[in-house]
């Protein structure tokens, strides 16, 4: 007790009662000068920069080149740097954000609208106008361009503008609002863009790196004391001091990232497509005269998310093949769409179909179209069309192919009606068609001389038995559809024979695997080697009926993955007829192209009566099986089923999550019931009741300290508002007796036990009564007592 040191009494730091010397020594350090804190906050700025720029890299799949990346990254860098540097100065919290905003405005002005700026950098109203125009341009060029897009100035400006704004937002969230966790939404928003536009395999490495940067940012923010501190129970505070557990932070962060990557992979049925909804609002499929239609066709077929291209309602009993364009000029290079030199205005009327004699049965079909997701210079129409009405803009029609095209407008958003003919030739008419080719059609049998002999030889061997052109055509189609060939959208790409040219046709004939364009071009070329005029039609296959109206019309939805190519062959007296050599799509070839057409048409000459009953019953299952096997063309119904399954899985996951969420509440409730029940039997009823009271108090976030005696705790509880004093005193007396007195021989009477249970219940009710309903909920769903129990292990 000797205290000879009479040193000058210095004001001691307020000694924390529960604090060890180490902690009390450390506490003041946190407040050493706001300047140190500012420097530390500035250190976070590079991390925020990474957080914004890394996900920007994922846009590389959408935009070609890398110039856009540099300009966008520089905007972000300028904004963040200005904010960080301003923050080094002793200024109020909002000033850095305002400075960053100013920096953003100036940077955008200098980079993207320097001409209208005052002194070269101050924005004016003209700048605003220019930028607004630029944004509209960006929207247009995004809609028109296919992926990867050319980063034209408006798109880059849009990127810089939005990324700069996101940088502002992230900076403000972390430093001004002091909620660093919310900054994670920013990279998420950027990452989301490429996947919304163009579904691709997820780059796990990039994601892991971004998540790592994000968690590092959070950890540092916690260490530096950035972020609003919420009051937390002392029990948690003492166990986990924020930002000072390096190893724990590292392990839990790594675990979180790992889970985020691994969990979706091992969860069945959860693929990027699962939650995808085909809506008309998606980007339209793009066809223009400048784009190679066959390449675009293969791209559209491989699209994993088909978009609704158009809807049509027709009086026809079956679906219609809708032709966009013909390929007829088979040259050595890639095959180009038919020229429109002979085209004339649509208003002048549609020419009569080539070679269709008046003795062939035809019936008119009226169809109305709504195009929603197809941006094309050509109009999807059935062949042969006789009239088109209701179009906006100037449209021309090309004789022969009867395709309708426009030079100043496109198909997107068009709403029109077309009258077409359903040609129903008899077998006899087809058989008797003359093999002679009129001079006007000589270009439809023209072939380069150096085409692979394989094509010619195959055509000959396939049609050996056939005599008439019609029989040969039927034999050719049968050759493709008889099972030797397989449908695949990927095989041609892997085998490098994608596209429309003779080399591709020859390779296809030996590989025997491809998709519609290969079947169509092979049949068309082989027909030409046999002297039958042929061309390739590109358009949509009929698709599936979605609804039947009361007036007998049927509505069809056509998706971008129903893009199709098929050969059209010419027969004297009948004209151009469509054939269907492509297997595996569940498409029914036209009745006249089947080998037994002669027999069928003799019995029932009209295709309507023969084909109709068969089609719906046989095609559907086949379609499902085939598209599932091919895995490429997704039938809307199959897709709907898949979606339903995905939602089911999502529902199950939600249910499991909900079950997990209420599990603590259930366990806690069960424990209470068990204790109250045991109080009637067990040798230590009062202790059990006391434990229940203490646990409930801890659920309600009372501090239940280990070093506190029962009596002190009871005093505290007794001071609660509306706490009845008698049950507390009674229970306390009982528990003290039970715990610390000599153990009596006699057991407690059942009445006394019931009294104790009543005491416990009264206390619990009183605790709940004084708490707010929010406290009640928290106590029920997040019972702290369970956690304390776990920690004790």
């Amino acid at each position, binding site marked *: *007790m*000797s*205290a000879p*040191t009479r*040193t000058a*009494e210095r*004001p*001691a730091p307020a*000694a924390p*009662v*529960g604090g*060890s*010397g180490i902690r*009390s020594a450390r506490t003041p350090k946190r407040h050493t000068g706001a300047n140190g804190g500012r420097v530390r906050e500035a250190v976070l700025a590079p991390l925020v920069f990474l957080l914004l720029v890394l996900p920007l890299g994922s846009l590389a799949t959408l935009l070609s080149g890398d110039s856009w990346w540099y300009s966008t990254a520089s905007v972000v860098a300028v904004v963040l740097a200005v904010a960080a540097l301003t923050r080094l100065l002793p200024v109020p919290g909002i000033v850095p954000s305002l400075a960053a905003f100013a920096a953003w405005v100036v940077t955008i002005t200098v980079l993207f609208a320097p001409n209208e700026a005052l002194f070269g950098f101050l924005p004016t109203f003209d700048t605003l106008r220019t930028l607004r125009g630029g944004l509209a341009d960006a929207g247009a060029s995004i809609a028109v361009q296919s992926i990867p897009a050319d980063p034209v100035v408006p798109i880059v400006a849009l990127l810089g503008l939005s990324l700069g704004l996101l940088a502002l937002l992230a900076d403000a969230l972390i430093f001004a609002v002091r909620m660093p966790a919310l900054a994670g939404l920013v990279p998420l928003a950027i990452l989301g863009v490429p996947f919304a536009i163009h579904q691709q395999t997820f780059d796990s490495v990039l994601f892991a790196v971004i998540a790592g940067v994000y968690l590092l940012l959070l950890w540092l923010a916690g260490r530096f004391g950035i972020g609003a501190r919420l009051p937390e129970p002392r029990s948690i505070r003492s166990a986990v001091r924020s930002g000072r557990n390096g190893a724990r932070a590292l392990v839990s962060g790594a675990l979180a990232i790992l889970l985020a990557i691994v969990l979706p992979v091992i969860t069945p049925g959860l693929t990027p497509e699962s939650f995808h909804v085909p809506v008309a609002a998606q980007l339209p499929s793009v066809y223009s005269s400048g784009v190679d239609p066959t390449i675009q066709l293969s791209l559209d077929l491989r699209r994993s998310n088909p978009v609704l291209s158009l809807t049509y309602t027709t009086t026809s009993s079956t679906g219609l093949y809708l032709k966009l364009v013909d390929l007829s000029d088979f040259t050595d290079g890639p095959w180009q769409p038919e020229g429109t030199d002979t085209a004339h205005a649509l208003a002048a009327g549609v020419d009569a179909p080539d070679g269709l004699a008046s003795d062939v049965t035809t019936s008119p079909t009226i169809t109305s179209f709504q195009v929603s997701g197809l941006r094309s210079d050509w109009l999807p129409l059935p062949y042969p069309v006789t009239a088109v009405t209701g179009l906006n803009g100037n449209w021309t029609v090309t004789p022969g192919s009867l395709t309708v095209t426009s030079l100043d407008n496109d198909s997107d958003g068009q709403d029109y009606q077309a009258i077409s003919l359903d040609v129903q030739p008899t077998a006899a008419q087809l058989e008797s068609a003359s093999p002679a080719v009129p001079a006007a059609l000589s270009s439809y049998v023209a072939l380069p001389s150096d085409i692979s002999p394989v094509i010619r030889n195959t055509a000959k061997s396939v049609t050996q038995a056939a005599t008439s052109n019609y029989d040969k055509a039927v034999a050719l189609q049968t050759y493709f559809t008889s099972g030797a060939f397989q449908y695949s959208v990927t095989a041609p790409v892997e085998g490098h024979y994608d596209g429309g040219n003779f080399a591709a046709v020859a390779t296809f004939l030996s590989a025997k695997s491809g998709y519609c364009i290969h079947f169509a071009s092979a049949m068309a070329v082989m027909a030409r080697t046999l002297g039958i005029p042929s061309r390739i039609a590109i358009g949509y296959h009929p698709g599936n009926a979605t609804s039947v109206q009361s007036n007998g019309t049927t509505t069809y939805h056509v998706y971008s993955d129903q893009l199709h190519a098929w050969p059209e062959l010419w027969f004297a007296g009948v004209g151009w007829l469509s054939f269907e050599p492509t297997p595996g799509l569940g498409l029914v070839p036209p009745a006249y192209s089947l080998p037994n057409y002669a027999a069928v048409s003799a019995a029932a000459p009209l295709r309507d009566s023969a084909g109709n009953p068969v089609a719906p019953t046989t095609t559907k299952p086949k379609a499902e099986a085939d598209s599932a096997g091919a895995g490429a063309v997704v039938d809307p119904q199959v897709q709907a089923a898949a979606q339903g399954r995905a939602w089911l899985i999502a529902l199950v996951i939600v249910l499991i999550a909900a079950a997990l969420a209420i599990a603590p509440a259930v366990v806690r409730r069960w424990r209470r019931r068990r204790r109250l029940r045991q109080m009637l039997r067990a040798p230590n009823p009062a*202790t059990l009741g*006391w*434990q229940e009271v*203490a646990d409930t108090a801890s659920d309600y976030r009372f501090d*239940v*300290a*280990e*070093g*506190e*005696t*029962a*009596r*002190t705790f009871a005093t505290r509880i007794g001071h609660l508002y509306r706490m009845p004093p008698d049950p507390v005193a009674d229970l306390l*007396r009982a*528990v*003290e*007796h039970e*715990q*610390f*007195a*000599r153990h*009596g*021989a*006699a057991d407690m009477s059942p009445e006394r036990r019931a009294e104790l249970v009543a005491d416990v219940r009264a206390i619990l009710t009183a605790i709940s009564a004084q708490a707010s309903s929010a406290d009640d909920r928290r106590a029920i769903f997040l019972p702290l007592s369970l956690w304390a*129990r776990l920690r*004790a292990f």
Partner: protein
Amino acid sequence: MTNVASEQPSGEGLLGESLGEGLDEFRRLSSAILENLQRVINGKAEIATLSLVVLLAEGHLLVEDVPGVGKTTLAKALARSVGCTVSRIQFTPDLLPSDVTGVSIYNQHAREFEFKPGAVFANIVIADEINRASPKTQSALLECMEERQVSIDGQTYFLDAPFSVVATQNPIEMEGTYALPEAQRDRFMVRVSMGYPDARAEVAMLHNRELQSPLESLDAVVSREQLMRMIETARSVFVSPAVEQYAVNLAQATRKDPDIRLGVSPRATLHLVRAAKVTAALDGRDFVLPDDIDALVVPVLAHRILLTRRSLSDNRSGGAGSVGSASHRAVDDVLRRIVASTPVPLVAARKA
């Protein structure tokens, strides 16, 4: 908590019944003693109770404070309230050990040495200003305190029970004092600091003492036999293994604490439990609660603990209160922290 003992009528048979009766008598007598004490020292009920606890637990009391706050009055009042023999020794630097213990004198008539008992041969010994005596004399008294016997010239004389020393001392910083060494402080069960009375108590004191000292009118309310029975009753209070473990845990904690240079001795644990038994009995209980232990930790343990220099200087604050109280407060703070962080049996049991 008055009817606890009667709540378990079929409890322990004869023992329980006699204990129940004992407790009744205990309560009656103890409240009479406390009443007496209260009349003398205005306010300060806590200190009165503590001094009674020490007497009933057969311990020794060390009253420490600046002069004039009523240390001696308390000791005298306590002694007077029980009908026991009382002796008082004023310790001075020239006091000899034989003045305390007694001396053998040659009786010329009887031609033999005759033992003249010293002041220590009484039931209650008031050792006033014990730190003014030389260490030699101090240790003579302190030996008697522990051994309850006096050995002179090879002859051992036993002291009558009850035997209790009430020592007073001035704070050690004052002049002309010999500080009690740690080993000797350890023999006192409880150290209390009187502290200044508050304003109202001081005014009341002025009125009380206008005519005569209240000590004069104080009568013995307890006979020696009754006191012995009370001590016996307190001894028989039950201490559950959990509470014993708790006391041991507290003692162990003082030995491991980084702020403490010297922890408490096993004797301190013994004293703690003995005193807790009396507090329980005063409360009318026949068993000890952790609360009893908690309440006694500071009075029983504080004077046995030496803080590290660092924690002493950390806690030294600007001279408020009486001299020397800064270091006392520091010790009290450390002890309270230990009490707060040591798990109480009941709570600890539910974690098992």
